[in-house]
């Protein structure tokens, strides 16, 4: 009985690994296409591709990083922040994601500071 259970578990384990690999490979294709179009200035298409990549593989930190950059470029700073933070949650030691996030934060902090700064009557 334990041998059968072990066999089933082993089978499940071995079949799950290629599935994850497939997802990552599909997502990577989307990411690569997104990069190619972003380099040509087609940011909307890039966003579509990177969103697809994240749908396919929600743990793909690089795709989230790229998506965050695209949101930033489009001025959607809140979405960019969420995407960067998810990417860093998945890969907290990725120096490039960290660097992008730091640069983003500089701008984001500036705008949020401005918003909270005043709006009071004289």
């Amino acid at each position, binding site marked *: 009985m334990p041998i059968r259970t072990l066999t089933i578990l082993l089978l499940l384990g071995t079949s799950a690994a290629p599935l994850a690999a497939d997802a990552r490979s599909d997502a*990577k294709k989307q*990411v*690569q296409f997104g*990069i190619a179009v*972003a*380099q040509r200035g087609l940011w909307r298409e890039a966003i579509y591709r990177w969103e697809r990549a994240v749908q396919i593989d929600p743990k793909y*930190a*690089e795709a989230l*990083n*790229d998506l965050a*950059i695209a949101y*930033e*470029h*489009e*001025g959607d*700073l809140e979405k960019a922040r969420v995407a960067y933070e998810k990417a860093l949650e998945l890969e907290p030691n*990725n120096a*490039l*994601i960290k*660097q*992008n996030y730091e*640069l*983003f934060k500089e*701008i984001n902090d500036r*705008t949020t500071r*401005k*918003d909270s*700064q*005043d*709006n*009071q*009557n*004289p």
Partner: protein
Amino acid sequence: MTGRLARIARTTRILSSVAAILLIAGCTNYYEIPIETPIKPKLDVSAFQRVLVAGFIAGGTDDVDGNLETTRLLRSQLRTKSELRVIDTDVLPLMEVANEDKGAPQEANAESPKTDGKTDGKTDGASDGKEGKSDPKVEARGEAPQPASPDKAAVIKDAKDLEPYEHVFADVEYWKKIGEEYQNPLIVTGTVMFTPHQRSGIVQREEEVYDSFGRRRVVPVRTYMERKGYILQPKFIFIDGRTGTVMHSENFREEVLYNANQSTPALSSYFELMDRLIPSFLSTLSSQRIKGTRVLLE
């Protein structure tokens, strides 16, 4: 024993190749890409086609006419960097308006307001009796901004001296009247304090030193220094010309210090400090794009 060693060696080889593969797989491709982050304006000014930089209540030093210079600078910046049409007119005599509103003419009131460019010949003191305000407030129009009297600026020496005048910005009726006069523009006004400032203390600077072998080194040196400069504290107030109400206001503070032996004209310090504020001022009215570079990952 030999067989065991061979097994260990084989396992080590396998493990090291797996590690190498993982390492290569971990090295993702990356691409630097320039981006431009659009920053939305803080104020929705889509309802306005025109902007009136009305003037400022200014004080601090007599060397710079903060009212006139700020008005000129903001008008020229808005002309080139915003989509709003800038109204060219005389600077409004806000100090006088504030004094009239209080109904107690003060020292500054003794000076004639800068309505010299008036063409309708009305006198400055002609009060209409309505809330103590008088026509000159809206009459101050002409071809170009007129310099404010230096004596007026002298009245206001620090931020506290500004307080008695600040109520003018909340005078809805007055601003509504101005708005009607200029076809409901967005009105920019406020206060500008430009004050001389000096500070002495320990300053760290870098100094070149040569050792006994003639090698040059730069070392940080802490020295006591007397420094002087200026502090610029503008408050920009944005008023809806249709309703006369304040839409938004912003305070800024910038300062600059120079070595005591360095003589920098007050006006150039003023422009140096205003240069730092202008992007923030403009971002209130128009969207800005911040250029940068990010790294896309595969």
